[in-house]
């Protein structure tokens, strides 16, 4: 159900672009207005979300420790899984952000089953996630060649490396294939593992289907319909310099691709895709486990009502004296005072 809903939404987007160009001829709207709106939403939304996160303080130091803490010099500690200072936290964050370390932990050790050693590799999710993110990054960087003139060296080099397996002409990008495979894997996984399907919301399917559609239309523009890339570059450069005009004679498929990309960009800050930013602020990962060493201050700390020793002794003085426990005050005439049980 959630899957169908998301699929319909993406198809509706495709149809919108198709009809908008083919029937209504809204080229300027789709090539100028939509990208600017999407980009504005992306920037504004991202800033808003990050500010919202940052506006809430971190009252307590609550890192999840996954390795030996710092104690004696003769006990080997684990700097990355249990950082004791900011430098080590940086190491932990790099491992998390660049290598998805926690997800990598998601592994099942070998066990013996009968006489045979049984081994199970449980890292497909890690591989799939890593593949998706890195291929996406490469594709994104490659697209810089549309927005820059001259094209920076590293973008050219990247494009060259990416297509070094010269299959057909133009060369097939490895990143494209990896991206498509990763998206399909993550989508299929969501659909066929019942626990994961059970927890999936429309917001989980939608971005995957959207990215799938972006991939398909992107590949179509490059390999099959042969969109005039020079025109596309003119448009992109113009958009970047705020002085563009809608190009003629660029295939409709390009406009579909563009609208889908714009949707993704605009949707990004308002969805779970913002996990990209959240990981940097996650208090269980970005803090050192050093609150016994250095004091962490809670900015909204306030005094609370506590039973004081005086109140305690007031309540138990007689029994304490009887038991030979030291007391601060001897019993006054007239018997023990009454201890107030609740706040006045």
């Amino acid at each position, binding site marked *: 159900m959630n899957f169908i809903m998301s699929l319909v939404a993406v198809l509706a987007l495709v149809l919108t672009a198709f009809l908008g160009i083919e029937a209504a001829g809204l080229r300027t709207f789709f090539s100028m207005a939509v990208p600017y709106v999407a980009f504005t939403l992306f920037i504004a939304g991202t800033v808003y979300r990050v500010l919202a996160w940052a506006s809430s303080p971190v009252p307590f130091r609550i890192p999840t420790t996954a390795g030996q803490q710092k104690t004696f010099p003769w006990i080997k500690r684990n700097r990355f899984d249990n950082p004791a200072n900011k430098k080590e936290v940086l190491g932990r964050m790099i491992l998390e952000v660049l290598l998805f370390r926690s997800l990598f932990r998601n592994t*099942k*050790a070998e*066990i013996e*089953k009968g006489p045979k050693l*049984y081994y*199970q590799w449980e890292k497909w999710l890690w591989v799939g996630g890593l593949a998706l993110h890195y291929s996406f990054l490469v594709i994104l960087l490659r697209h810089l060649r549309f927005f820059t003139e001259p094209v920076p060296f590293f973008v050219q080099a990247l494009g060259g490396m990416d297509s070094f397996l010269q299959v057909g002409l133009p060369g097939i990008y490895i990143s494209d294939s990896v991206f498509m495979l990763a998206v399909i894997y993550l989508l299929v996984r969501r659909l066929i*593992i*019942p*626990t994961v399907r*059970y927890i999936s919301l429309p917001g989980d399917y939608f971005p995957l289907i959207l990215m799938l559609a972006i991939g398909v239309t992107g590949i179509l523009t490059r390999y099959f319909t042969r969109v005039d890339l020079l025109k596309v570059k003119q448009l992109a450069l113009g958009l970047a310099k705020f002085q563009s005009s809608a190009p003629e004679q660029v295939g409709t498929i390009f406009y579909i691709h563009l609208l889908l990309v714009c949707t993704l960009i605009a949707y990004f800050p308002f969805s779970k895709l913002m996990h990209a930013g959240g990981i940097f602020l996650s208090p269980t990962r970005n803090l050192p486990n050093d609150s016994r060493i250095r004091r962490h201050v809670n900015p909204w700390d306030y005094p609370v009502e506590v039973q004081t020793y005086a109140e305690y002794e007031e*309540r138990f003085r*007689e029994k304490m004296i009887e038991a030979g426990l030291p007391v601060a005050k001897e019993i006054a005439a007239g018997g*023990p005072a*009454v*201890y107030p*049980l*609740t706040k006045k």
Partner: protein
Amino acid sequence: MSIENLLLPRKKELLKSWFDLFVRAYAPEAAVMLKGESNQFANPVGQTSLSAMADILDEFLNECRIDKILPPLGRIIRIRAVQDLAPSRALAFIFLLKGLVRQILDGETAAGKVSHADLAEFDERVDGLALAAMDIYSKCRDSLYEIRIGEIKNRTNRLLLKAQIIAEVPEHKSERHDN
């Protein structure tokens, strides 16, 4: 040829169908986990049940010695006894063996290799297995209550030796304390 001899070479098939049926008693989301994960530590319920069922079948189709069957039967029933199931539900999976065996031996029965008497005899042994499971189930429940009592005793064991030393929070805030 006895039923056991016919079943022995097809033990794997029998175990698989039995376990499939067993797992279907759980919610679909749970069933997937129980079946999917073959690491005994990541999936204790599923793997303990599967290995216990395998051990039970091994012995059940061979010599059927009670001292060899009770331990694996105990492993699986001990889990069932704390899974929020009525006793009938907890033990029903054992009776499924009857239907499964008929299914598996369908061809042989039609060919006359398996007689009604054979089947009746097999059924009776399944009933025996179920009765043994019932004993274990009830023992598990008893032990659960004993453990509960033991825990409460442990918790305040030292206190029981000395009376009158717990201060209760009084019933009403207006009530005066002590003495």
